[in-house]
């Protein structure tokens, strides 16, 4: 039940999707993989929207070079665990939700248990190998994966509904080479907002999801484009007979 206090807190957004929509957000559990450039805006906006439970997984410490974009963390957090910093900020922003934090590096051995019974996974990672692990977990658990990635003023986003829409590996069969990418906070903010919007739409069952489409944002040109994508029937992750589905 949405409490009297929550009804007041969420009044302006309940005008969009009613108490029933707010109740859906409150009952929901979303896992956010990464508390960095993308994870920061995603976590902040999902927290203030009233997503009932957020699980945040990250194993890094806050460094001064993070602060141009990782807006969950402040100067006074330098040297602290990102999860501790995130937990404090999110509780301050919205004490009516539950925030779980896990200090670990996601890999193929722990990903399924870290995601647990979450209703969706936000990809706020900084590398493709771990993204493929999350993609496999999303397929195995049949929960959506909200993909986002950034480089400089460019970003991309797509929503993956397993077994229905193209998965991350259908879109990107091979990982790009590893590099330390240049990035500016506004791009992570922009793409993070696309991801958070997708989460809210999915949970409230509103609008048209960014499935089978890759949104490409070019901040320098102020141009958003989309590319139609399709499931790959022989996809290594979500094709008819795959490693991920065999694990079920």
């Amino acid at each position, binding site marked *: 039940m949405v409490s009297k206090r929550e009804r007041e807190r969420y009044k302006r957004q309940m005008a969009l999707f009613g108490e029933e929509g707010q109740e859906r957000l409150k009952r929901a559990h979303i896992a956010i993989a*990464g508390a*960095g*450039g*993308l*994870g920061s805006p995603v976590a902040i906006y999902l927290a203030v929207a009233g997503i009932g439970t957020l699980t945040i997984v990250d194993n890094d410490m806050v460094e001064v070079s993070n602060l141009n974009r990782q807006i969950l963390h402040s100067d006074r957090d330098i040297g602290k665990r990102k999860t501790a910093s995130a937990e404090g900020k999110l509780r301050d922003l919205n004490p009516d939700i539950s925030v779980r934090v896990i200090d670990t590096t996601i890999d193929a051995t722990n990903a399924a248990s870290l995601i647990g019974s979450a209703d969706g996974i936000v*990809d*706020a*990672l*900084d*590398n*493709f190998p771990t993204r493929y692990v999350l993609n496999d977990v999303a397929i195995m658990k049949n929960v959506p994966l909200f993909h*986002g*990635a*950034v*480089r*400089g003023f*460019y*970003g*991309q986003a797509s929503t993956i509904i397993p077994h229905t829409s193209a998965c991350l590996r259908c*879109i*990107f*069969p*091979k*990982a*790009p*080479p*590893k*590099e330390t*990418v240049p*990035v500016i906070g506004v791009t*992570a903010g922009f793409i993070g907002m696309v991801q958070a919007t997708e989460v809210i739409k999915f949970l409230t069952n509103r609008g048209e999801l960014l499935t089978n489409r890759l949104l*490409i944002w*070019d901040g320098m040109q102020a141009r958003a484009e989309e*590319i*139609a*994508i*399709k499931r790959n029937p022989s996809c290594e992750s979500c094709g008819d007979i795959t490693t991920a589905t065999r694990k079920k």
Partner: protein
Amino acid sequence: MKVKVRFFARFKELLGTDIVVDAATGIALNGLIRDIAAKNSEGYDEIFDENGTFKDFVILMRNGKRIDSTDAPQTKIEDGDEIAVFPPVAGG
């Protein structure tokens, strides 16, 4: 025949975008992109390996439809085609 090639992200920084070329009849997708990318060696090296084949992570689209990079040598370009070439971005 007129063909439009659009590069994205890092490729665009190095090679530009919305490039309209007068392509030779019968040219294949890999040849078309190789010719355009040849104007900037850094851009070329981002897209092609030392054998002149597309690096495996490069995404190719022709008129909004995905083309597997291994099929590029057999993919003949037609008048009016729009080709998109982009790399996944990976940061977060």
